[in-house]
């Protein structure tokens, strides 16, 4: 995987202080959201825990010894949730899925992959989709299981697939 290229804001000290000026703050949060999403994508981070977030390199730049304070991290994560790039897994908002692509987008991608590999009307396991050899070159390879399930459920809703349960294993039939 290519080295993640930090944006210029990452080495700009005021980036790590939430700006009081409303206009400036909006721009700053835009930059933060973009940074977190692209960083998550590049490092395949799918879940973020608020308590652990402060140790993530994205919120901390040791080179200029600046770190976004916990309050700031919460603001950024809330902003991400507002924009649909983050989904809280619990009501207390301590953990969340980082969605650098929405579930329906994932679903679309998986469906077109299924089409191109002629899996329509066939059944395959979820493991095959995100871990199997045949999807190794796909973007959703290595995707978090929960997010994958979400993506497939969107396909089920639109009638493009059918989820099946085989005891402790799950499968899907593309229609």
């Amino acid at each position, binding site marked *: 995987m290519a080295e993640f290229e930090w944006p210029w804001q990452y080495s700009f000290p*005021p980036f790590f202080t939430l700006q009081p000026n409303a206009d*400036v703050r909006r721009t700053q949060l835009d930059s933060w959201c973009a940074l977190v999403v692209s960083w998550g994508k590049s490092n395949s981070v799918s879940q973020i825990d608020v308590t652990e977030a402060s140790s993530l390199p994205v919120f901390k730049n040791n080179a200029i010894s600046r770190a976004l304070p916990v309050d700031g991290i919460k603001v950024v994560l809330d902003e991400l949730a507002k924009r649909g790039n983050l989904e809280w897994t619990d009501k207390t908002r301590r953990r969340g899925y980082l969605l650098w692509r929405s579930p329906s987008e994932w679903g679309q991608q998986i469906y077109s992959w299924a089409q191109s590999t002629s899996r329509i009307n066939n059944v395959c396991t979820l493991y095959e989709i995100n871990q199997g050899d045949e999807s190794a070159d796909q973007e959703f390879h290595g995707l978090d299981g929960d997010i994958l399930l979400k993506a497939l459920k969107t396909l089920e809703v639109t009638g493009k697939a059918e989820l099946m349960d085989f005891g402790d294993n799950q499968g899907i039939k593309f229609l």
Partner: protein
Amino acid sequence: MDRWYWCGSSLTAGEVVCTTANGIRLYDGDKRTGYDDGHLTLTNHRLLWRHESQSSSLGLHLSLVVLVEDEAGGFTSSPKLLLHLAQPPHSKPAGPVAASSNSFIKLSFRQGGCSSFQQALQNAIGERDWEKVVIPSLPASHGKQSGGKTIHTGILGIERAIQAKQEETNQNISHAFEDLKNLMGLAKDMVFLSKSISNKIKEHSGEVSVDDTTRFRSYLLSLGIDDPVTRETYGSATQYHHHLAKEISQALEEPVKEVGGVMLLSEVYCRINRARGLQLLSPEDVMHACHLMKKFDLSLNLHTFESGVQVVQTAGLDQDKVVETTVETLKSHEVDGVSAGDLARECGMPLLLAQERLLQAERCAKAVRDESSEGLRFFPNLFFSRS
């Protein structure tokens, strides 16, 4: 050892020999000296040590002896007396040793008699006979007595000294205030005189010569404001404040311009009072007057920052321009940012004002803040300019 001095063997008036001892060696601190095998005489004033071969004696005034201790002898050492000594007086006859780091001496008794000598010595010190002598024509050694006296009066003496010092201080203070009172009295006359003369000048400008007028003007100018606005001259408070506002804006217009168009209210207060000299203004009056400045369209006006800091600024001051200059400074420190202290140093303005400048720039979205363990610093707003 430096407390010893050369003297004759004759006794002064009122001096009585108490006891004597032979075979005495002198020590400077713990160090043995060459003054050995001498004859030691104790009088009620002094210790006198003399070697047979010498005509003059070494004297040590008893007033210098603070404490006497005995040191028991052993197989190889003879019994000794340890004498703790006070600081020598400044004027002292020449002695064998000019200066010594030790503040004690030892007397070594090689031929016995140590304990009886100690007894007599302590008695002599306790008696303080030298204090009782009041004879005007005392030898030089008397100078030492008064010097030693203050040292040896114990706690009571120290208290007395402190009291004396306090009295002296009190006197000095009242002297100083007397001077001030005189000055105030004179100044009152001076102001009165100046007023009457200026009235005269107004009434009949012909009577006083031109020379006198100019000279008088220059006196007044050196005093500051020549005709200060006072509450007495203007009956109602608003009238008074109105005129005061005029006076302040006239007197401080130049200084405010010099410092870049903005001056802290506290500095205004100091400056105007310094210019007025004796008719001092209260802070409230200055503030009321400054509040009125806008109303009367004067050359200065009062501006209150959001933080509550109040400044007086020139009426034509362009806020955008001020922000612009702040941003210029910020841009020259794009890498490490600018703190309020940096800006104050660089632009020679008060710290409070520098902080206001930065916050103002921030409000205009021209600066962004960086809060870290190093404190609050400001950077140019790259969020807008770069992306």
